[in-house]
């Protein structure tokens, strides 16, 4: 890809970051937290995209890493009295190790079996978090110290989002990403070309596991109360999957665009129609999967509004 396209993409990113960083003082608490959660879902959708969009292993249980991160932060802050920023790194580390342990057996499964095994792994983690009373406080959850933190968490999330976008962009443009794409298209052919598919799948999986942990940690510090039901909520996986798919999986711009559009829409409808919006989301998943499997970016490419190289 040409040098100036990189420059233009980074220019777009810089504008996004500048806008998001000058906004907060002008917003009220509610708007700040909506934008913070939007950024959180950008992080989640992009990291889901690394394993599922680039590598083609669709994960139905990514909420697991998010929950692990939020539990790491909550436990260290409440029970061990840490400052909250170092806990994010601990969460990332734990999530990294767990992703390697789980990924090694599970990534040998293909297609739907991987998806369902991940669903099972996430539910299993939730059960462990519920049962292991002495460490995770069990089903009663953990309450964090109540302090005004909307600015801190906002900017922390902004930094995590920036890192995630840059890493995703790098994955999309490097040899690493090309190898992941090769695995997605035909794993056996990729192996016959000398790509160590186990290594690349595992690295992609670990890479996609660390950002949700950081996002989960910040979110735990922001919402002040966590329990297994909300932190390992299957809806979080659904959201990240839907946002990434709606925008166009396997691209960098797609998940960002999808999240910014859908999360805002979801936030508005959620306030007005608490149950109906979930029904609508189910229908929406069906429609996207059935009629628009390549998402908005695929649609744009088909119409000639975007060039194929640009979106990667």
């Amino acid at each position: 890809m040409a040098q100036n396209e990189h420059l233009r993409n980074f220019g777009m990113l810089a504008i996004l970051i500048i806008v998001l960083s000058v906004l907060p003082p002008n917003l009220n608490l509610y708007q700040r937290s909506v934008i913070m959660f939007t950024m959180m879902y950008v992080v989640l959708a992009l990291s889901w995209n690394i394993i599922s969009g680039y590598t083609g292993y669709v994960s139905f249980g990514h909420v697991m890493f998010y929950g692990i991160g939020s539990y790491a932060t909550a436990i260290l802050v409440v029970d061990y009295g840490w400052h909250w920023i170092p806990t994010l790194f601990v969460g990332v580390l734990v999530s990294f190790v767990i992703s390697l342990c789980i990924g090694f057996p599970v990534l040998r499964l293909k297609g739907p079996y991987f998806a369902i095994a991940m669903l099972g792994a996430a539910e299993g983690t939730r059960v462990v978090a519920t049962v292991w009373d002495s460490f995770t406080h069990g089903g009663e959850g953990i309450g964090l110290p109540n302090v005004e933190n909307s600015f801190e968490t906002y900017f922390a999330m902004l930094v995590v989002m920036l890192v995630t976008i840059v890493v995703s962009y790098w994955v999309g443009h490097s040899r690493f990403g090309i190898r992941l794409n090769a695995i997605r298209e035909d794993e056996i052919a990729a192996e016959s070309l000398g790509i160590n598919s186990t290594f690349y799948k595992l690295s992609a999986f670990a890479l996609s596991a660390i950002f949700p942990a950081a996002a989960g940690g910040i979110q735990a510090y922001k919402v002040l109360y966590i329990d297994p039901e909300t932190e390992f909520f299957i809806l979080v996986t659904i959201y990240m999957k839907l946002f990434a798919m709606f925008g166009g999986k396997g691209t960098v711009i797609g998940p960002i665009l999808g999240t910014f559009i859908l999360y805002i829409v979801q936030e508005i409808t959620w306030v007005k129609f608490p149950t109906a919006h979930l029904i609508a989301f189910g229908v929406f998943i069906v429609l996207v999967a059935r009629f628009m499997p390549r998402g908005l970016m695929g649609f744009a490419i088909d119409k000639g509004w975007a060039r194929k190289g640009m979106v990667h």
Partner: protein
Amino acid sequence: MQERAEIRSKYWLALFLVAAYTVPFAVGIYTENVFFDLQWLADLTTVILNGIMQGGVYAMFAVGLTLIFGVMRIINVAHGELVMLGAYLTWMFFFYVGIDPLLALFITLPIAFCIGLLIQKLLLNAVVGGPELTPLLITFGLGLTIIHIVEAIFTTDYRTIPYAPDALQLTETIAVSKSKIISFVMAAFISLSVFFFLKVHRIGKAIRATAQNADVAMVCGINIFHIYMITSGLAAALAVAGGALVSIQFGFNPETGVLYTLQAFAIIVLGGRGHYIGALIGGVMLAVIESLISFMIPNGTAMVEIASYGMMVFVLLIRPRGLMGPKEN
């Protein structure tokens, strides 16, 4: 070489199953929940009997899933939601119309058949044979829709149907609840009649032919899209029948369907994907191990879920064919 790997995987699977059945006992001995006196042995027998009875119900909704998988190579993640829907349909007929839950099957099964037919016609016919993940996502969205529609109508409260609650005393110490026996008999009856339908009836033969090779079946003059629709309807009917049997034994709410999907999936992986009798055997095996776990491991009811996930993942890793699945899929 291939043969040898094949045989080796069979032994590994056997070893894994033995280990899986031993673990509850080992944990029970470690936590001192196992006594080996007469009373405990009677309790154990009761638990195993209950497990077998429950296995009939599990098998009931697993055969629907295995049927869809065998014919179309689609994993229907909304299957558990159909089970849940069946439980609610039965509950509605029981409370608003006052029909006996088992007689209500005569009304609910045709409804379920039509639902399955419609799902297939509108959503899945176009994606059979395409990328494997598209139907997965479609049925996932469908399941979500069903859950939240039911939730909007019935709220998330747990519902139960009081039906034959008393127990049948086999000996002085061993007892099995009547509702479990009734549902086991019903499950055995329904799944065996579907089995003979598949073996004997013309449409059943067409379904099996499509499962073996859809292209050749088409050449022989079978309209495979009709067969897909009938299969889907049959699977939905089996799921709803399973739901009716669930509703007379356990409480249910809109969220319970997810667990049933996972259990059904674990069962068909264990029994062999697409294999009918395998699903029946797998159902009983999973139910027995689940009841052993909740009997002997403290805090075991929460662990029951982990049993099915672990079962599924390990069997997929050790021997993807499962107990008796066909070689290539």
